[in-house]
């Protein structure tokens, strides 16, 4: 493989997220089997869906005996952000074959998206195949660990000690993704609008407040960039 350097760089950048994927895959496996799913069904979720938050929402609503269509609507709403990730990756990976774009789509999770888009923006000279190799490198330590951890949780069961603040590994790993993105004033303003927006629109159902906040934050970031560019050009 000619792009092995990019692949291994991605692998290295994806590896620390094992600290997140391992406990949460295991917790999903444990909770799913305790809810009455067999191992095949539990693995079906983690292999066919690969989206932790949406899987937990679906499981919770199945436990509440919600109608199938409502379960699907609520859990897919959690994954609507993936369409925004898809749009954001399109300028970088859209020119590739359908086969490769489908692989990118299947493995699209928060970590692979965030690590890749940061890399691409810092290295605009990367070729399509280098970008694809980097992406595959990031997902290599993440997605297989998600499957294996789910299986271990489902098969081995209740070994996780309760009372640990393990839930907070989620925001910690996301902070490790977010802070490096705050490269300009426009990025900082977009992040602030996102935070304020999600609090203001928290009354909206199905997690839709997050999407409204995200759209407003993208507009705020883009507008800040436009004004800063114009101000710079005005000075020249």
């Amino acid at each position, binding site marked *: 493989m000619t792009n092995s350097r990019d692949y291994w760089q991605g692998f290295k950048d994806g590896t620390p997220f094992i600290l997140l994927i391992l406990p949460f895959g295991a917790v999903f496996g444990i909770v799913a089997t305790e809810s009455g799913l067999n191992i095949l*069904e539990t693995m079906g979720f983690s292999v066919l869906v690969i989206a932790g938050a949406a899987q937990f929402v679906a499981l919770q609503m199945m436990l509440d005996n919600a109608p199938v269509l409502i379960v699907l609507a609520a859990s897919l709403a959690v994954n609507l952000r993936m369409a925004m990730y898809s749009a954001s990756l399109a300028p970088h990976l859209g020119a590739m074959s359908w086969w490769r774009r489908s692989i990118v789509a299947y493995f699209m999770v928060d970590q692979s998206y965030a690590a890749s888009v940061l890399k691409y923006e810092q290295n605009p000279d990367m070729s399509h195949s280098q970008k694809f190799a980097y992406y595959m490198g990031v997902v290599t330590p993440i997605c297989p660990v998600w499957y294996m951890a789910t299986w271990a949780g489902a098969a081995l069961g209740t070994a996780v000690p309760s009372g640990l603040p393990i839930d907070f590994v*989620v925001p910690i790993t996301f902070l490790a993704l977010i802070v490096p993105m705050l490269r300009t004033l426009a990025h900082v303003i977009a992040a602030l609008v996102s935070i304020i927006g999600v609090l203001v629109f928290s009354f909206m159902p199905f997690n839709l407040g997050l999407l409204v906040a995200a759209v407003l934050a993208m507009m705020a970031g883009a507008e800040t960039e436009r004004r800063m560019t114009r101000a710079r050009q005005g000075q020249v």
Partner: protein
Amino acid sequence: MTFGTAQIWTVIIGLGLGSFLLRLSFLGIIGNRELPEWVLRHLRYTAVAIMPGMITPLILFPQAAGGALDPVRISAAVATIAISFLTKSAVLTIFGGAAVLFGLHFGIG
């Protein structure tokens, strides 16, 4: 749970297929077409527009702590941000943040 096998697999396959189509959506539709500059300018802020909002409720109102501000978790979040700024390293940030989290948990609790 009163879900039967058929219903369970309907949810799994429906959610899997739907998620895949959401992930493929714009990658598939846009393909190699050039996007206008104003669209690209908005897309550059996608990650930073979604992820901070995603974790804000988890940091401020953690369900595992009864949905109230929790000094251990807030301190760990502040420490994580500081480590990330200072080290610029995801590995050090994640392991450092987790060390502060569990250290405070066992120290205080």
